[in-house]
C-alpha cells in the first residue's frame, strides 16, 4: 500500500508498504529516519517514542496504515537547524547520554512533559518517564537533564 504522512513538517510518501509494517519500520527503513529506536518493538521500552498528532506514542505499536494523512514528529524534528532543543542540549550537558539508544525516546517524552508541565516535580518527572527504559545511567542524570531543561525553558 501507499502511505501519505506529514513527518517533521514535510509531506512524505512511502510506497510498497506491507500492511503488517509498523510506523517505526516505515520511519526507519522507508523514510530514512532511523532516529526513533527499535529496542523492544512491543511497547515496553519507549525508545521509539514519537509525536503522532502531538501526542507521544510508541511508533512500534502504530500500524503504518494508521498514520495516513496524519502528522508525525520524530526526534529528528526537534532541533531548529543547528540549534538543539533545550531538552536535547540538557541531555548532553548533564551526562544523561551514554550509549544513547534510549535517548531519542526519552528526549521526545521529556519534551512533551515540559510542554505540558513547565516546572515538574521529581515524582512528576519519574511518572512521565516511567515508560522509557535506560540501561546505562540509572536515570539520575536523566532527571538532572530534565530539571536543567525545565530551568531553561
Amino acid at each position: 500500500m501507499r502511505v501519505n504522512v506529514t513527518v517533521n513538517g514535510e509531506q512524505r510518501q512511502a510506497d510498497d508498504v506491507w500492511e503488517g509494517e509498523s510506523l517505526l519500520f516505515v520511519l526507519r527503513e522507508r523514510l530514512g529516519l532511523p532516529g526513533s529506536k527499535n529496542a523492544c518493538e512491543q511497547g515496553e521500552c519507549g525508545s521509539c517514542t514519537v509525536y503522532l498528532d502531538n501526542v507521544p506514542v510508541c511508533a512500534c505499536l502504530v500500524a503504518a496504515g494508521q498514520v495516513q494523512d496524519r502528522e508525525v514528529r520524530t526526534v529528528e524534528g526537534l532541533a531548529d537547524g543547528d540549534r538543539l532543543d533545550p531538552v536535547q542540549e540538557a541531555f548532553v550537558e548533564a551526562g544523561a547520554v551514554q550509549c544513547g539508544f534510549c535517548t531519542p525516546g526519552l528526549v521526545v517524552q521529556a519534551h512533551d512533559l515540559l510542554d505540558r508541565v513547565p516546572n515538574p516535580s521529581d515524582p512528576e518527572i519519574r511518572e512521565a518517564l516511567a515508560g522509557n527504559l535506560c540501561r546505562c545511567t540509572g536515570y539520575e542524570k536523566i532527571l538532572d537533564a530534565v530539571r536543567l531543561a525545565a530551568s531553561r525553558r
Partner: protein
Amino acid sequence: MTLTPAELTSAVSGGIGTSPQRPDGNLKVRGEFAYSSDLWHEDMIWGATLRSPHPYARITSVDLTEALKVPGVYAVLTHQDVPGRNLYGLEHKDQPVLAVDVVRYQGEPIALVGADHPETAQRAMKKIVVTYDVLEPVVDMETAADDTPLHPGGNLVRHVPIRRGSQDVEAEVVVTGRYEVGMQDQAFLGPESGLAVPAEDGSVDLYIATQWLHVDRDQIAAALGLPQEQVRLTLSGVGGAFGGREDLSMQVHACLLALHTGKPVKMVYNREESFYGHVHRHPAVLYYEHGADHTGKLVYVRTRMYLDGGAYASSTPAVVANAATLGVGPYEVDNVTIDAYGLYTNNPPCGAMRGFGAVQAGFAYESQMDKLAEALGMSPVDVRVRNAMTEGSVMPTGQVVDSAAPVAQLLKLVQDKPLPAGTSSDIRELPGGVSNTTHGEGVVRGVGFAVGIKNICFSEGYDDYSTARVRVSMVNGELAAAVHTAACEVGQGLVTIMQQIVRTELGIERVTVLPMDTTIGNGGSTSASRQTYVTGGAVKAACALVLDRLAGRTDIGDEIIDETTEWRHRATEALDPETGQGNAHVQYGFAAHRAVVDVDVDLGLVRVVSLDCAQDVGKALNPQAVVGQIQGGSAQGLGLAVMEEIQTSGGKVRNPSFTDYLIPTVLDMPPMSIDVLELADPHAPYGIRGVGEPPTISSTPAIVAAIRAATGLALTRVPVRPEHLTGT
C-alpha cells in the same frame, strides 16, 4: 616522578580531570548517530536465523525445499554452507556457527535465510522443515558433572581450587549458608545487528556493534575460511553491551549470507531473539562457611561454588577464576579453601556480564558477613571493618594488594551519609507506587551495607594490550590531532576519555576520534573495566612519541606527525592448578553501598528508597562519566537484587521479553549519592582504577541486606521475589 591526581589536572580546556561533553552527544540527542541497526545499503537484503525450539535434541533431517521456493528469498544456508571452521568461542572453540547434528540449547542457530524483506525471511523460515530426536536436557549445575556428557571432554568446563593456610583450623563462631544467584541478562537496548557488504574480490566488510573488533574478526575469518585481511570490521553505533557483546551473535551469519548472495545483508534481532542471541550472567549455587573468633576476626572461609555455563563455554573459565580468586571478598583471611566449578548444561549459554564472577561470589560472601555480624552481635559495618583489606593485604591467591584498598574508608563514607526521611505518605514514594496498594500499612524499613572487590583488566597471564595511533597536523593554522584505535566505544565514553588524554598530553585542544576499525592493531576488549586503563595507556604512550617529534613546535607546516604504538599493563601469572596461588590480577577495584528499602510485607513489594555508593577510582579522568558509571552499575545491581532473572524450565526460557524480564525503570531507581575517592595507583596511567564493574557487585547484597533488616527473613536467593517475602 609520580604526580598526584590534583597535579595531573590539565591546563588545556577539556583535558583530564574535567568533564567535557562527549563528541557523539549531539548526534545521539538528534537521532542522527548511526547504530548498527540503523545501517542501510543500496540493494541490501535482510537476514534471519532459524533457531532450535529444544534445549537438547539430535537433528534428524533438515529440508529447505519449500523455503527456497518463497518469492523474494535469495538464500537458505545451513552448516554445509560454512566454508571454514564451523566452531568458534572465546576460550574454547566449542560452539557451532550453525548446528550440525545436535542442538544443545533452546535458540541455537540451525539455518539462515536471506530475503528482500524481514517478513519474507520470517515466512521462508517457517517453511524450513527440521525433524528432531528430542533428548532429556541436563539442567542442574550441581549434578551436571556426572550427568550425560554434552561435549567430548565431559561437562566440567573448569575447576579452580584455592588453598591457603590451614585447611582444618577451627573457629569460635561459625556461620554457614547456601546461596543462589539467578540468570541475569545484560539487556542492552540496542539489539544485535549489523550490515555485511561483500566485495568483488571475495572479501567482506562488516559494520557491527561489538566489544572487541579483532577477536570478532579472527573468529569470522576462520569460519569463512578467509585470510584475516579479507575480513574488515568497522564499529558502528553500539547500544550498550555490559558483556553481552563479547561473544559472536550474527557476525558470521551476516557475512555468510553476503558472500553467498553477493548482496549487502542486514541482520537485526528483535528483543525475543536477543534473549536467545547472547550469553547471560552465570546463575550460581554457592556454599559458604565462615569461621571467626569472638572479636569478629575471620579465622577461615571455605566455599564451594557452582556456575552454570550453559551449552557452550564462552568465557566460563575466566568467570570461574574470578569467582574463586575474589571469593572471600575484600577481607583479610589467613585460611582459605575454595573450589569453584564451571559446568556445561543445556541451559542458555552464559558468559560475560558486568562484574564477571565477582557478582555471584559477592552476593554470597556479603550475605555471610551479615550472618556473622548477627551471630557475634556486631553491626554489619563493624564486622566488615574488623576484617577489611588494606594496601599490603594478601589475597587468597597469595597476591599482595600493592595499591590503595580503602575498604574501611568506603564503608564509613556510606555509613556517614545522611539517612533519607522516614517512610513517605505520598503513595508515589511507597512500594507499589500509583498502583495504590498501600498507604503505609504493612510497610517496614531496613538499612543494609555491602562492599565488593573486582579485578581490573585481563588476568592469569593473558597478554593484554592495546594499540593507539595519534596523528598531528596543521588545520587552519593550528595544531590539530586525531586519535585512532580499535577499542570499542559502547556508550561508556571512551571517545571522550581519548580526546581528554590527547589534550592533556599534547596541549592540543582540537582532537578528532577516528572510526574504530581493524585497519589498526588490536585494541583489546571493552570489558574487565579495562579500556581507560589499557587503551588510555596506549593513547598516552602514542602521545609521548608525537611529543618527541613535535619538539616544542606549534607550527609544523605541511608535516604530518603520525605515531602508532602498543601499550600493555604489567604482566600477570597463571594460577597454580593445585593451590590456586599466583599473582593473577593486575589491579583491584573497590566499592561500597548503603541501601535503604521500604518493604510492603503483605504484598512482598520492595521500594529502594536510597542507594548510596562510595568508590575509589584512582583518578577521575572524567568525573561526570565516572559518576554515570557508578550510578548505572548500581542500577544493574538493583535489578539483580529485586527483579531481573531469565527464568528457565527444563532448559527453556520462560520470559524472553521486556514484558516478562523486568529491568529497573525510573520509578524503581532511588536517588543515588556518590562519593568518589581518588587514591592513585602508581602502576596505572594517571593512577586510574577501572570504574565500570565494582558498583555492580556491592549494590545487590546491600539491597538484600536492607530487605533482611526490614523483614527478618533469611533471603538466600537473588532476585528476591514477592513470594520470598510473603511466604506464599
